[in-house]
């Protein structure tokens, strides 16, 4: 999986490309913006073509870790297949999900400014 981090003000956009499963989830956990618990991130899922329960677990772990430090994990641009996984597992209730990365960044910036 290719992970690209792009700083956008106080937010970091983490763009994922490939498969997020048991073999690639540790890679995501090691990426600097994800690993930094106090960094709010927008995870761009546009090019994620497969997500399994371990991948879902790594996203939920990230969300929990960051919320403990008053940071946030936002998701953007999910394709139909990935959003179906979130829907059937009810994981969509945990995340703020956007169809546009820039809207997610704006939302995260507002959240940060309220802190």
């Amino acid at each position, binding site marked *: 999986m290719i992970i690209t981090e792009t700083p956008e003000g106080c937010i970091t956009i983490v763009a994922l490309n490939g498969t997020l499963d048991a073999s690639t989830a540790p890679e995501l956990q090691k990426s600097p913006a994800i690993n930094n618990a106090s960094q709010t991130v927008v995870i761009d899922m546009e090019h994620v073509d497969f997500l*399994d*329960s*371990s991948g*879902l*677990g*790594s996203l*939920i*772990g990230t969300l*929990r870790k960051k919320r403990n430090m008053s940071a946030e994990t936002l998701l953007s*641009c999910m394709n139909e297949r990935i*959003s*179906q*996984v*979130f*829907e*059937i*597992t*009810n*994981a*969509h*209730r945990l995340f*703020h*999900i*956007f*169809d*546009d990365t*820039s*809207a997610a960044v*704006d*939302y995260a910036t507002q959240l940060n400014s309220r802190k």
Partner: protein
Amino acid sequence: MKTLLAIREREYEWVNQTFPSIHPLLLPICNKPFTEFLIDFAILAGSTEVRLLSDGPLAEVKEYCENGSRWGVQLSYATLQADDSLKDLLDKNRRFCGEDRIMIISGFCFINYDKQRGYASIMSQMPAGTCVSCPGGSIILAGNQETLSRNPPEIPLSLLPLDEIGSYFRISMETLENGSARYVLPGYGNEPECAIGRNVIISKTAEIIKPVSIGNNVQILSGAIIGPACIIGSNVIIDKESSVKKGVILDNTYIGEHLEVKGRIASGNMLIDPRSSASIAMEDPHLLSGIKAAGKSGTAGRKTVHAIAAAILITMQLIPFLLLFPLLKLQGRWCSGTTTCHADSSGKTFTLPTAEITGNSPAGSLAAAISLDRLPLLLRVIIGQLTIIGSSPIPASGETGDKPSAKSGYRPAVFSYAEAEDWPVNSSDAAIVERYYTIHSTPLNDIGLTMKALLNKLYEHNAA
């Protein structure tokens, strides 16, 4: 213009409880699913794209509505969070909204519109803001008006909250009595106020009194009197000499001989009084209400594979069990008991044996590491009461005694799918994993996941 339909699960929770076999967004009103009325109105208002937002499950709605091509609109789906504000909804769907004017229909409400009116032109002249509202719902316009007008016109529509079964019954009856001119309703008929679907068999001696709406695959047997003011869904049998007056008979229902249904709603084998919400179970010899439920339960193939795997596990655990059980029992470290759990989502319960290994002794740790405490449950897999891996059995009493949701795919099991994963830290995480595998796992995958759960338990106890 584009339309966002935002409906939160808490707004239609009562439908799940009253009609568990019907998806609330597909609740039929005069034999037309609720969502279709919203889509029809969005089209009348000039929308070319519609997006349905909900925090509840949408799979059944997607299967029914697909991409909206049947109505000539682009229909898409997205999720929302229960406490999202209007601004949040617009932000979360920014790519969909673009620079267009947006109509946001929010809440589980019925739109009382008239298909003869030119809503597209009226909406284009309306300024941004709330157009219509009712308790629990509203129609809001966002973005600049498309046609400038000094005096925005009155909007000839109203919103009616669908907040309980009484309002559902009232709206259904009003739609039947006055709706054929106002809405596009399903069914065929030479006369107004009488719409009949496909494959409807009406006995020569049966009497039909207008207004009525009858769905598809319906049999009305001799001497039956249908109407006035009667809505009959699809796959319904009205048996001999029965009468239905001012009633709603939903899909997959059998009304037995010599019954009089007046001012009631019948759904499956339940007869409900819309005023008090009281219900009674009816006889259903044709099992019309059971056909769907039977299809959802575990397949014979899965049960066979699980039973074979359980038999192998029992064989493997038998010798350690015979050696360790007497020792632990003598030490008082093996505590056995029973617990009552939900057998499925219908509310049926069963009693399961429980075993707990207490204290911290080498024999106890070994027994726990090789999952000997699950041996009594494995026997229940052989007789088909449990699956080898699936959902954690939900106790039928106490704090967690809530009945599992019909849509959760609850399958009580010896090992839970969550035990096969490393990451779940609380019950909400475990529920996510269980839901994931309930949909994605095959019987053979289940064997692999059972092995993984066994190994996880082994490592967990070794690490401890």
